[in-house]
């Protein structure tokens, strides 16, 4: 189990940042991803693996109305 933005989310073997964003339906183009306090560069989303028990933050930088 990992947490994403403080909420539990199931972990699976081979989970990458890109896959996680897909599973969460996070399609917004400007998301800052931080794993256990370490930011992940956007161009490395596809290859950065997330380990079991990790604390992941996916902060959407959206302005809104």
């Amino acid at each position, binding site marked *: 189990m990992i947490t994403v933005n403080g909420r539990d989310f199931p972990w699976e073997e081979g989970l990458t940042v890109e896959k996680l964003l897909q599973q969460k339906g996070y399609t917004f183009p400007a998301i800052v991803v931080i794993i256990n306090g370490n930011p992940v560069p956007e161009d490395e989303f596809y290859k950065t693996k997330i380990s079991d028990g990790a604390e992941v933050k996916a*902060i959407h930088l959206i302005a809104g109305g």
Partner: protein
Amino acid sequence: MQKEQILQAHKLLGKFDYQLGSLERGYSDRTLYVNLSTNEIAEKPVSLETKEKFIGGRGYGLKLLWDGVSGTTKWNDPENELIIAPGPVCGITQYPGTGKSYVVGLSPLTQTVMDSNVGGYFGPLLKFSGWDALEIQGKAERDVVVVIDGNLGTVRIEEAPLEEINSHLLIEQLTEIYADTEEDKANISVITAGDAAEHTLIGLLNFSFYDKSRQAVRIKQAGRGGFGTVFRDKKIKGIVVKFLGVKGNLNHPADIGVLNKTGIKLHKEIATLDDSQNKMRKIGTTYLMKIMNDYDILPVRNFKYGSDPEAVNLSSDAFCKYFNLTGHDGCWYGCTLSCAKVIESFKLKTGPYLGTEVIVDAPEYETIAGVGSVCGIFDPEFVIECNFYCDTYGIDTISFGTLMGFIMESYESGVINEEVTGGLQLNFGNSSAALEVLHQMGQGVGFGKIAGLGVRRMKQFFVDNYGADPSFLNDIGMEAKGLEFSEYVSKESLAQQGGYGLTNKGPQHDEAWLIFMDMVNNQLPTFEDKAEALHYFPMFRTWFSLLGLCKLPWNDISPANNRTTDEPAKIPEHVQNYLDLYTGVTGKQIDVKEMIRQSEVVYNFQRVFNLRMGFGTREHDRIPYRAMGPVTVEEYESRAERYDQQLQQFLNIDPSEKNSEEKVQILRNYREDQYQQLVDSVYHRRGWNKQGIPTLETVQRLGIDFNDLVQLIQEKSE
């Protein structure tokens, strides 16, 4: 009709010659007063105390209105005022989004003080003509135009019988009439409303600017609150300002170098980054449609749902096909964020202008969601046609959309029927019926007259006349304080519920837009966090209303390194830009703390103003349950997994042991209680008592402990 013919029919009712002055560090220190009952026109000085406490823009509007009306003034009494005030930074040309002004007055919808922001050239040109605000009181006997010439130093009230009322024709007429040459048109801005503003309570004001590239007059809107209705009630057909000579230093800023440097920096930022961020220059605010739909927060069918498979037909791609772009679609000089998209030629399919090709100031996100997905209509050409007619008839697309959603749900639930609607089958999705209602509003006939009352009065009307169940209507009627909700689904974000419910004016998102921070990013987990956000963001955004600034360049573009800052949601570098602009114009150094304090003064004053008008306490901060959670079983089941999980997680209830009706009620009790707890936290953070009235300590701290204000607070506090 010829210009000469129209002008010949004008009759001069009042004239005022004034000394042209110059602005000093963003201010002229005088306001213009026009009384349409007596035709009195006068110059009023701004006191130092007013300037220091109220800063400008909305602040000036509130102060002038407070002094002009009493606690019992009604929106359609002659004493009600329409005040237009720019603000000290308004009118600089170097930085994007510096042409805004605020309209303030008593609203027909909320019956208390309302404020509405608007772009276009009127605010800056009014300022350069020598005025920190325009204050209109009284009512004319017959339709008039008020004309301010900032080069000659004259103000005139002229009876204007022959001009059109509907905006798309009137703006061209007035610009044509008062311009000396084709080139001169760029020096004119006009304010107009339209036919439907007379027949409904949801009237808006259009503020124009001349688009040289397209040789056409275009408009921005002071949309919310019904000011178009007040305008027409006063028999104002148009207000015209004319000023030749716009330059970047007209505010006589303390340090123009700061303005130049900061402006160039932001222009460069937009030039290099907009395309990889929101693409405002290409698609305007339509970029929000897909995001809202993907994240299940697009209002669909009267806010029942958050997404729809057909929503893709209203995406930015769908609308971009119609947009015609130039390199400068801003609503004031120098706005390179350029969000004011336009459709140069659209052939109308319905209504009095059927078959004509018109220019449409292209749909914003709010309009697309409001008249589109809220009504279950996913046809972009319907949205464009509706946008056009709302603009020319002078009514707010947000209120129109949200009230139509209410009507459609009432119709589908059997609260009203074809007999009531005069044969219109107002199901969700029926675009031709929706347009028919709009045209009826334009003519003041049929069901359109009832619809034009707005959601609050319609609920009462349906209860009184058709035996409707008031509690159901109160649940689904998306209004608070009498104003229709703007187009974001707050259901799953307690912070946004506060962002809508705890506003001064009503549920407009210009105070706080916290949905993602709360719902998705989960950055506001505790009541304290939410209360802090519901203090900071409304105060931060209020500040823009004092200065004449547009919020879009604040966070719809961000610097490349923004994501590495401590609080990226605040866009710290841009906050500093605004502090620098303030210093550059006024010469005064301020920090964020002072910025917030300046806003708190005006915000709390507005809260007490509501109190004075008979509102401003806790019960008026309620919101309909549709904005908080699933009203019906149908809604619950559309998100059953999420809601069941919440029952389990927060209430230790096993969802399999309850039926849907029970689950709806359990969740409802929980959420309503959560909201009340949020209200407690926010009142505490804002320095208000449990009733939501600013405490004596708060008004003293903010220097608004005027005698009448203190007396009022003491009378109303338990």
